[in-house]
């Protein structure tokens, strides 16, 4: 199971506490994880990536295993530790003041 940590506002929207776990079929990529996340929590459609282009929203970042994966290809494999569920995939609201 893939572990995903959502920022507080998205946990509120999805009505979850703590990490969420997802069953991801096939290769574990950003796109596969986000597809599974949005299928399970449809209210998160549009909050992490654009509805149409599926591009990451500007102030959202993806971290895992102490790396910033935000600029990686959405189809690149995520680290093995994420795929094996030993490390979470972190969806983070970027620092932007306000």
């Amino acid at each position, binding site marked *: 199971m893939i572990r995903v940590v959502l920022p507080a506002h998205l946990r509120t*929207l999805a009505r979850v506490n703590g990490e969420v776990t997802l069953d991801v079929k096939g290769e574990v990529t950003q796109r596969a994880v986000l597809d599974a996340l949005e*299928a399970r*929590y*449809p209210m998160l459609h*549009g909050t992490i990536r654009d509805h*149409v282009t599926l591009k990451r929203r500007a102030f*959202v970042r993806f971290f895992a295993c102490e790396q910033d994966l935000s600029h990686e290809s959405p189809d690149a494999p995520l680290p093995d530790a994420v795929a094996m569920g030993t490390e979470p995939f972190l969806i983070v609201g970027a620092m932007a003041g*306000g």
Partner: protein
Amino acid sequence: MSSVRLLVGTKKGAFILTSDGTRKQWDVSGPHFAGWELYHLKGSPVEPNRIYASQTSSWFGQIIQRSDDGGKTWHQPGTPPGEPTTTLDGMPKGESNKFVYDTSPETGKPLTTHQHYDGTQRPWEFKRVWHLEPSLTEPDTVYAGIEDAALFRSGDGGQTWQELSRLRDVKGSLWQPGAGGMCLHTIVQDPTNPQRIYIAISAAGTFRTDDGGKTWRAINRGLKSPYELPDPDAEVGHCVHRIAMHPTRPNVLFMQKHWDVMRSDDAGESWHEISGNLPTDFGFPIDVHAHQPETVYVVPIKSDSEHFPPDGKLRVYRSRTGGNEWEALTNGLPQRDCYVNVLRDAMAVDSLDPCGIYFGTSGGQVYGSASAGDSWTAIVRDLPAVLSVEVQTLL
């Protein structure tokens, strides 16, 4: 006994303020959706406990929320409280935050670019919902004013949205953003003619449909914008800030423009200036007394670069003559060292007698008057910056 409910959108959440008809004691609930910008909340005129809210964030985008119990509980349309968020086969139930511009051949492949600040053409990109306007007759029908400027309509209570895209046919390639963005912020329905809707866009101007949104035309004749538009007869490009109408006289419109307070007596076919003796004719909100169609309210702001009241004095101005002759309303409002702004959607009137009027400020105060503006009190003083104020009169 009658009561009133104020729906206050702020930079960091929504607040609901309620009072009985005396409007002396207020209960405050909130923040709802804490930490999010609530650009606008508005209740259905036909089902007052049905309230629509625009919840938005630079981080996480646009959410539409709906309450069916007067703001006690909220849900994203398509996913009622307590129900599973997916169908039995795992499919999403609703797409209430999905605003996708129409590019379909069936509607003539609407324009896809508009003018940017630098004169280049840029694609329309959805940013947020500025304004929600529930139908006057159908509780499940609601209009949304969008940045980048477009009008969307939902016929299923906010669950799905479709663009009324022919609006962008009206010289859309010449529209360009104002300093606050290219937003469709005003939606006014004619209560006597369900096919007629007025909208206003910064910085494109005012537009009207007479066929329920199938076709549109610009109604900006008489607007003068010499500092922004060199062409005195420019059909589009005017920075309209807000339009107000009294429901008993739908052909009479009042407008607060970037500069100038304007009036039309022919459903927007022509406009003339009514700024008269105002200390400055720049401002954002404008509204009309609930029982006196010639009584109009504005909040003058010093200038386009100094968004605060002149002389540090917060003054609402009232005209009882449909414009030109204005009186300052100051009783109970700060008359020194006050440098707040009042945004376009942040003023509203109730329909009690005497008429109540309310406005919120960028300093987090919500002021109310139960005497049509003669005297004011601060209902709350320390909210986050107020983006919008709407009032519901509950009988």
